[in-house]
């Protein structure tokens, strides 16, 4: 087995077509008839433009306009006066066309590959692609016609250029393996858009394989098998069927409402860590943000973020979500999350110590900067404030008082904000769970953080392998706690969400439906999975299962019962 970077999910089993890099060496010679050479060069440029425009059109039709921009970029670059123009000048001075193309392209490749910026470095590979295409035309080298490969082909190449990718016929190519490239390279983006399994950066793969070898490409795990034995093949045939079936099922849920089998709507939100992740949430069909962790703002810099920096980051996420709910969790540091410049003292028991809302309420000036940043962003969409690690009623009251204080200041300064902004709390400690009814009188919403709730309820450090067996949200104690929190929220008429990993767990979802959870907040990639599971259960079925499960006394029995009932 060979390992590479998993760039496009799925399983491909097929016969290899090895794309060999052509020899593009040429003899540099002095040109006397520069006019003839210019004519040869210009017709190469015209051919390049025509081919590139055709590829762009192909990609636009078969994949999408955004992907076609790569080829359109090549057209814009070659049309640039400094590209073809400089090349022409060199030819006029007596250079051959091949040398002129190489010199000008290499100069730009050198310039762009040195830049710090990732997107700019990508331009270097664009120019390299242009150079190769032009040299092939000038030297009369013909490529393998990828558009004509047989069905069931796995393409193996040193690198898959956009020009190659544009010729791929989706029905014939079942997998892609290359020696270079990462998850964000053109070839990866195009492979994903075409839904062809791809593993990139497999060292030396073009030296290992031959045409017509059988290969398996596991683009989910990043594994490649060459000439595998029958046992491996049959294992992967099954894996492939499972993957295809699951994908087809999930696709039916794109753009659908999140409803239970008996038609009760729920909200399906996403957990994100940076404003950019909000784009992912939208792409994955998330209906809002249920947990926007604000720590990144504090960890990325050597100093505290200013109010403007925070406002800009929150607003960016709010803008991307376009009016959908964004729940921002205020700073949750301490415990295992340290921020060097705050110089927090080392503690014996950091998870029971000076962290999250405790730290924030002791450092009000700092906390108010964050609250003001969030309030200002609330003028641009539906924003909610979420307070982590609440253990008593006073904490919620104090945060709300601070929010009011910030609102007064902003009003006096004439700065806009949402006056009706909701302030809710994370329910993730045993204390908060036990007084959920009291907290529900103070908070505008609840969000259950199952990771911490499990840790605190079970008194178990999940990082300690010796006790990790106790760390399960399916422990009877944790399930009772979750049930209690949701019931208290429902009774007080406030919405209850869950933003821990359990919210997307197919075994947990029926229980949450039974308990009456209003909002599920999950990793963006799990939105469709969660929506699919939610759609399978009626309240009545979920209630029957929950009743049975809550009568069981061990975690093992509970998990077994849930697995047996799983749909």
């Amino acid at each position, binding site marked *: 087995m060979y390992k590479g970077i998993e760039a496009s999910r799925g399983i491909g089993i097929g016969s290899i077509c090895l794309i060999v890099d052509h020899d593009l060496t040429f003899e540099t010679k002095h040109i006397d008839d520069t006019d003839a050479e210019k004519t040869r060069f210009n017709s190469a440029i015209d051919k390049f433009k025509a081919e590139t425009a055709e590829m762009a059109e192909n990609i636009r039709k078969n994949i999408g306009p955004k992907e076609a921009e790569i080829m359109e*970029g090549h057209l*814009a*670059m070659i049309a*640039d*006066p*400094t590209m073809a123009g400089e090349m022409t000048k060199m030819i006029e001075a007596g250079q051959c066309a091949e040398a002129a193309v190489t010199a000008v392209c290499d100069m730009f490749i050198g310039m762009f590959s040195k830049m710090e*910026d990732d997107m700019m470095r990508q*331009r270097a590979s664009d120019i390299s692609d242009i150079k190769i295409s032009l040299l092939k035309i000038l030297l009369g080298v013909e490529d393998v016609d990828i558009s004509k490969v047989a069905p069931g082909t796995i393409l193996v190449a040193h690198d898959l250029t956009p020009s190659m990718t544009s010729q791929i016929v989706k029905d014939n190519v079942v997998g892609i393996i290359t020696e270079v490239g990462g998850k964000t390279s053109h070839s990866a983006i195009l492979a994903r858009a075409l839904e062809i399994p791809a593993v990139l950066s497999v060292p030396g793969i073009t030296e290992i394989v031959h045409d017509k070898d059988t290969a398996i490409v596991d683009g989910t795990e990043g594994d490649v098998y060459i000439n595998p034995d029958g046992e491996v093949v049959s294992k992967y045939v099954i894996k492939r069927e499972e993957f295809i079936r699951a994908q087809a099922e999930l696709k039916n849920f794109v753009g659908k409402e999140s409803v239970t089998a008996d038609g009760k709507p729920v909200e399906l939100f996403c957990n994100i860590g940076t404003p950019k992740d909000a784009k992912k949430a939208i792409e994955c069909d998330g209906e809002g943000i249920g947990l926007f962790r604000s720590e990144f703002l504090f960890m990325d810099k050597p100093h505290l973020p200013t109010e403007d920096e925070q406002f800009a980051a929150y607003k960016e996420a709010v803008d991307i979500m376009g009016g959908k709910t964004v729940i921002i969790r205020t700073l949750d540091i301490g415990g295992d999350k340290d921020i060097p410049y705050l110089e927090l003292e080392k503690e014996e028991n950091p998870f029971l110590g000076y962290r999250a809302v405790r730290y924030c309420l002791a450092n009000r000036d700092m906390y108010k900067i964050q609250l003001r940043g969030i309030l200002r962003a609330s003028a641009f969409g539906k924003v909610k404030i979420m307070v982590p690690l609440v253990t008593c009623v006073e904490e919620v009251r104090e945060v709300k008082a601070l929010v009011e204080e910030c609102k007064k200041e902003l009003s006096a300064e004439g700065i806009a904000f949402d006056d009706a902004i909701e302030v809710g709390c994370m329910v993730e400690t045993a204390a908060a769970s036990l007084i959920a009814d009291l907290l529900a009188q103070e908070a505008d919403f609840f969000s259950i953080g199952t990771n911490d709730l499990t840790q605190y309820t079970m008194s178990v450090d999940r990082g300690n392998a010796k006790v990790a067996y106790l760390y399960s949200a399916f422990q009877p104690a944790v399930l009772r706690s979750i049930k209690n929190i949701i019931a208290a929220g429902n009774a007080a008429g406030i919405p209850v969400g869950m933003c821990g990993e359990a919210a997307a767990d197919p075994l947990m979802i029926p229980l949450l439906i039974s308990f009456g959870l209003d909002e599920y907040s999950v990793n963006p990639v799990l939105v469709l999975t969660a929506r699919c599971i939610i759609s399978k259960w009626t309240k009545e079925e979920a209630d029957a299962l929950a009743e049975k499960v809550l009568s069981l006394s061990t975690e093992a029995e509970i998990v077994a019962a849930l697995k047996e009932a799983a749909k």
Partner: protein
Amino acid sequence: MVSQKVTVTNEQGMHMRPATVFSAAVTPFDAEVKILFNGNAYDGKSVMMLMAACIKCGAEIEIQCDGADEEAALAKAVELVESGLGD
């Protein structure tokens, strides 16, 4: 010759698309259009040179136009940069 200083405000700076928008807009003018940045002069009609200048968001650049229609070229260039280069 006329010139004016402006601040680049679009988020991505002078990347492929903004550079394409800029060069396409100033190319029709007869005047020579130069971007002065970081002590260098870059041809404003060249996408490649504009990208190579590595101009980031927040950078202050000077646009210099020289030729018969320099006033109009400068006005157009400044307006484009200030409006965020189509981003």
